[in-house]
């Protein structure tokens, strides 16, 4: 069909298109200062941040990821629930048939970082991460 040859892959991420990243906090964790800082960092790096804020569930985040056609999910965690909640998010993403990375930021002990990575978390960002660190982690996670 002639239209086939002119239609490019609908899944391709063309150069220069803004990335769309969801930022949220799961469960009963109200400390959103970090999330707001990261939202600002990403915005200043040209990213379109879909800001969901606090007290979200994995189901809400999956809904948003589908409707917003997000390129990545960023979770901020400060209540020591990361070993439970973050892998649950990764599972939910898989179950929904989505192929997007989950990135975690927050207070994460070093020992836990390895475990999170083993459970499919694409990147872990700690306190003091610079704008460049955050943006690089997002871009690398998406392109992998």
């Amino acid at each position, binding site marked *: 069909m002639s239209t086939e040859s002119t239609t490019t892959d*609908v899944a391709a991420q063309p150069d220069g298109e*803004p990335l769309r990243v969801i930022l949220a906090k799961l469960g009963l964790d109200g400390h959103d200062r970090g999330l707001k800082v990261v939202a600002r960092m990403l915005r200043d*790096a*040209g990213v379109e941040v879909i800001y969901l804020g606090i007290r979200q569930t994995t189901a809400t985040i999956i809904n948003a990821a589908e409707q917003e056609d997000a390129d990545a999910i960023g979770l901020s965690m400060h209540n020591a629930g990361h070993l439970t909640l973050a892998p649950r998010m990764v599972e939910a993403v898989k179950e929904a048939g989505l192929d997007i990375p989950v990135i975690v930021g927050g207070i994460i002990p070093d020992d836990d970082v390895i475990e999170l990575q083993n459970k499919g978390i694409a990147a872990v960002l700690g306190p003091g991460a610079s704008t460049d660190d955050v943006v690089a982690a997002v871009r690398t996670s998406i392109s992998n």
Partner: protein
Amino acid sequence: MPVPDVFELARNGERRALGRLLTLVERGGVNGDKVAEISHPIAGSSHVVGLTGAPGAGKSTITGRLAAAAGLASESGVGVVAIDPSSPITGGAILGDRIRMDEVIDREGTFVRSMATRGSSGGLALAVPGAIRVLDAVGYDPVIIETVGVGQVEVDIAGTADTTIVVVTPGWGDAVQANKAGLLEVADIFVVNKAERPGASDARRDLELMLDLGAHPDPNKPTWRAPILMTTATDGSGIDELWDQVVAHRSWLTETGELLGRRQNRDRFEMLGRVDELLGGLGRKRAESEQGLALLADVQSRKLSPTAAAAELLADLLES
């Protein structure tokens, strides 16, 4: 996967496919054109409702509540497009409308898409007409559009929606403000939100006064006097009445034939917008050519005016 297949999935209720179609519309290009080509012939039946008003007036919260009210009345699902500004410096954006829409965000049959303006002014994103078309074509009715917070002249929504709701709050301005503001000329329905606050009845009175001043109806034309609704979006009061007025306005549009006129106008504006876009693109491409650069040099050395240079660049198109 080719665009027509994605479209089929979206029509069958696959939300991820619809999400991707909207991305293609935003990106434009070959795939975006294809989406428009498929959706245009089958779109045109959904009621398009636009909400506009100043930043912080409560547009997102009202949009969420209104979508919930509409969802109870609609079997076809409610589409929402919520627009927030892109940074003019970095192109990035913080799209924060979903957090105000707890009421609807996880309802089956409600589809909410956040959109950044990506450099366009007027309170809408360039991709909005295309996004409405897709949501309409896959069966969402109504489609509710929430603009970025606007001031006085950013009223593009009125050219895009069937029913335009203008949201104001107590203390937003007096009757003079009401008279000069372009926002108010486009309202089909007014909402005074945060109506529990002091000054709400003053705001209402100023709007009534403004409407009285403008009330010189042409007896040969059907007229609609914009009703003024009082709401407190955070607790939902006044929202059911607002939805009733939206439905009433829709009936009025249909009965008077005004709906057809508005939509024909919308198509015309969109086509003219595309003409501007294509001609602008062609012009910029030619400006980079050898001839274009030579003309630019003449303008810069003051041998030729910018207007004359532009006319020469497009001489073959301007002949007729």
